[in-house]
């Protein structure tokens, strides 16, 4: 395990914990951007160059910009009301620990001593360059690739339909806020 891997892994954990612990959703969003960028760095270390770039452009770029736009459009304040109760917190933490304790040892024992860096023969074959990914995508996954474009089209149309739908006005707050979009 290299030094850079260690730094990126720790950064991913810290920013992941930051996402769920900030009270202000805007800070959570920025912590998530940091988390996605560290994961992009890990992709690059795993020879997945195309995915690293896609992660930065699509996830940290497009999707997070969409989230930030919605956050700023809604102009949310910091989460009001009571904190999650002690019982809820304890249940969640105990549940998480139980999940780790039960799931981690089998996984770890299965891959004990199996280092991805030792498989030198395979390294060339799994180099995720744009060319390699493109060739694989268009020779073995053509149908799925075309279907995914259909999914994106349906996503666009559905988002526009949902966002444009006229709703009866209920509260005083949303009248001027969302009319102009």
């Amino acid at each position, binding site marked *: *395990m290299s030094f850079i891997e260690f730094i990126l*892994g720790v950064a*991913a*954990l810290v920013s*992941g914990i930051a*996402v*769920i612990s900030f009270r202000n*959703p805007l800070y959570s969003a920025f912590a*998530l951007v940091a*988390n996605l960028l560290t*994961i992009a760095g*890990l*992709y690059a270390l795993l020879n997945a160059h195309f*995915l690293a770039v896609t992660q930065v452009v*699509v*996830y940290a770029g*497009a*999707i997070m910009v*969409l*989230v930030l736009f*919605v956050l700023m459009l*809604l102009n*949310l304040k910091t*989460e009001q*009301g009571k904190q*999650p109760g002690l019982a809820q*917190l304890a249940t*969640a933490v105990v*549940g*998480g620990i139980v999940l*780790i304790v039960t*799931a*981690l040892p089998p*996984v770890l024992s299965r*891959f*004990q001593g*199996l*280092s*991805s860096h030792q*498989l030198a023969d395979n*390294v060339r*074959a*799994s180099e*995720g360059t744009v060319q390699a*990914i493109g060739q*694989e995508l268009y020779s*073995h*996954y053509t149908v799925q690739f075309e279907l*995914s474009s259909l999914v*994106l089209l*349906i*996503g*666009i149309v*559905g*988002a526009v339909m*949902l*966002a444009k739908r006229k*709703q009866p006005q*209920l509260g005083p707050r949303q009248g001027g806020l*969302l009319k102009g979009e």
Partner: protein
Amino acid sequence: MSSMMTYLALSMVLFIIGALGVCLRRNAIVLFMCVEMMLNAVNLAFVAFSKLHGNLDGQIAVFFVMVIAAAESAIGLAIILSVFRSVASVETTDAAELKW
């Protein structure tokens, strides 16, 4: 400690942090971000296995997950917007009209 183990452990812990976030937070947009984080944790495991096995199938799977996540984020945020229009809040506890 081998590299593969590190990546799998990191992926699992990130997934569990995301799951904890879904359990603990009430803001729908934060829930959405936690789901994105869980998707990314799984993607990391996919890429690590892709390198371990020396083929690109895992990376192709990650590519499709990213496509679906992009569509999902557009739809999900539109749904959150329309919930906000009808209940003037994105807290999950406020959208409780069907709760008995």
